[in-house]
């Protein structure tokens, strides 16, 4: 190993890659844009849609209210609901989103209430449809109020206190610091993005520096030089690693900037006009939560050996291919292999244990979730970091070995 040669190869590959549009796109441009797009784009649209759905006064149709005039009249007076005429095919109307909910009152509902007969009421809606679910919630809240009022009336009739049927009250309040809530809600998303970007960041330089060189005929030129093959691999590998880390770095940088911009828009509300700016900044704060900065540093440290593994792995696989296209067809399916453990790590309820701590990528995604919400299980962290380093070393050794095999370099 000769560091001077490794650095020479690395610097040349760096210069070469900085002139390659595909590499720039995957290691700088897309990682920079992904966070602002997610927050200001998707975030704004999402929050607008939800707000609009909640602002809408849901339309409700009533079935069988003829003998319950008092209930119907009270419903019609409610400002939170809009009672409309019942269409003949009301089920179809709900499915077509022309009608949000239908309330079915049984025959002689009011009379039954007075007689203490416990009649059953039905609410029909479109499950999973945002506006219909919202309508059903409003309608159910109204029904609960009606039920409580009935209880109160009956208790009063018998001269009993209201607290008989409602012996205590309760309330819910969040006491966790905001970064813990953020870590839990989005802790899964950040490592997920980091893992994907680390991989795509490594992928393009890896293909360009191996299969791409074979295809363009420069690999043979390079091998004619007196530099040892180990030095060539390490120089090239360092460039692939640079791509991987730069993708992650640019993503985190732009995430920080997005949060800062979102935060300043929010904080300096007086200076900034209300309206679009405020709406998007609120969206930004919704999507980029308060994340523990120490946790983020921990994540970076944990990601490093994984980036090494990705760089060496992508390098090895791409090296085997004869052409850029062939390399792409090997590496593109690898995306799924990479994303799957990250997605599993995002699922709620899956927590670290000794066995999962040894599963590559899944362990990273789980430990990152913990770190970002301020939980530090040092024994798991040590095991995960250690095992990731071992996997990385194996991948790198494999890359070096593959590079010295003539049937790989001169594959025909």
């Amino acid at each position, binding site marked *: 190993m000769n560091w001077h040669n490794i650095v020479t190869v690395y610097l040349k590959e760096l*210069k070469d890659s900085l002139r390659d549009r595909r590499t720039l796109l995957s290691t700088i441009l897309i990682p920079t844009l992904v966070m602002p797009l997610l927050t200001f784009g998707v975030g704004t649209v999402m929050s607008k849609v939800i707000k609009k759905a909640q602002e809408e006064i849901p339309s409700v149709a009533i079935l069988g209210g003829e003998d319950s005039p008092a209930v119907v009249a009270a419903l019609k007076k409610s400002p939170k609901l809009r009672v409309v005429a019942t269409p003949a095919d009301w089920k179809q109307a709900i499915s077509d989103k022309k009608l949000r909910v239908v309330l079915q009152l049984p025959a002689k509902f009011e009379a039954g209430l007075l007689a203490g007969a416990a009649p059953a009421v039905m609410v029909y809606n479109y499950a999973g449809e945002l506006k219909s679910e919202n309508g059903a919630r409003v309608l159910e809240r109204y029904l609960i109020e009606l039920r409580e009022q009935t209880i109160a009336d009956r208790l009063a009739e018998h001269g009993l206190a209201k607290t008989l049927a409602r012996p205590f009250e309760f309330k819910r309040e969040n006491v966790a610091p905001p970064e813990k809530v953020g870590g839990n809600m989005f802790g899964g998303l950040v490592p997920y993005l980091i893992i994907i970007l680390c991989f795509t960041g490594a992928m393009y330089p890896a293909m360009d520096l191996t299969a791409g060189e074979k295809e363009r005929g*420069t690999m043979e030129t390079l091998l004619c*030089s*007196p530099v*040892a093959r180990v030095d060539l691999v390490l120089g090239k590998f360092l460039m692939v690693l640079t791509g991987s880390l730069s993708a992650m770095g640019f993503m985190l940088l732009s995430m920080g900037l997005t949060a800062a911009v979102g935060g300043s828009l929010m904080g300096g509300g007086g200076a900034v006009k209300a309206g679009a700016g405020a709406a998007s900044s609120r969206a930004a704060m919704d999507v980029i939560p308060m994340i523990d900065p120490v946790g983020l540093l921990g994540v970076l440290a944990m990601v490093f050996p994984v980036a090494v593994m990705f760089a060496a792995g992508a390098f090895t696989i791409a090296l085997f291919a004869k052409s850029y296209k062939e390399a792409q067809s090997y590496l593109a399916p690898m995306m799924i292999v990479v994303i799957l453990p990250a997605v599993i790590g995002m699922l709620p309820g899956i927590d670290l244990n000794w066995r999962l701590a040894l599963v590559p990528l899944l362990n990273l995604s789980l430990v990152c979730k913990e770190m970002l919400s301020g939980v530090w299980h040092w024994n798991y962290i040590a095991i995960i970091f250690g095992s990731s380093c071992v996997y990385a070393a194996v991948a790198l050794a494999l890359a070096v070995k593959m590079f010295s095999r003539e*049937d790989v370099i001169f594959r025909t």
Partner: protein
Amino acid sequence: MIEARNLTKTFKDKKRGVITAVDHVSFTCRPGQIYGLLGANGAGKTTTLRLLATLLQPSSGTATVAGHDVVSAAQQVRTHVGFLAASTALYARLTAREMITYFGELNGMSATAIKARIKQLSAELDMAEFLDRRCDKFSTGMKQKTSIARTLVHDPAVMIFDEPTLGLDVMTARAIVKFVRECRDRGKTVIYSTHVMSEVEKLCDTIGIIHDGKLCAEGTLAELRAKHAEQDLEEIFVRIVGLEDTK
């Protein structure tokens, strides 16, 4: 100086089984001479030259290049070799100057030495006009000149050419042939592979005819003509290789 001793290279191929691409080949190339390796497509020329340039490892046998063994001292061999083939391309996104500089650095030259060498080569090869332009915009002639400068940057004692005129237009091919001669005149050891008879006739001091991995005949043009009582090299070649018999 190149001395090949029973050089042998076999490949394992899934479809074709074991291929002996180079089969116990022995020859000697001397400084100030051009050794021509003449053979049809698939005869084993490229494989032989790759073995000499240590791009491939021999299965058995060995060779010494500039006094170093290709198996035990591959790295030293490469410091003394300039290898130019139809398949050795340029980095498209680098300029000619960057390309030559990179290979100077890989050969362990100092920055000042590289600068001086580029100045000299650029004057000799008339490259000044495109030295700082990117290689992907070059004509084939410019590419060849840059490749030549790349192989010469460390002033190697041994030059290996693998069908360097393949696919080039007449003018560029002539420039290459002229350059190969200059290498010889400067006392370098030159080995030159081709399947073109006329190039061998014009260029080579010694001719080795390779077929099916084996070196079938060797000698100067005059020796081969005398031995086969035939003036036309193509006739001699066909007779040696024995292609006519199989027809």
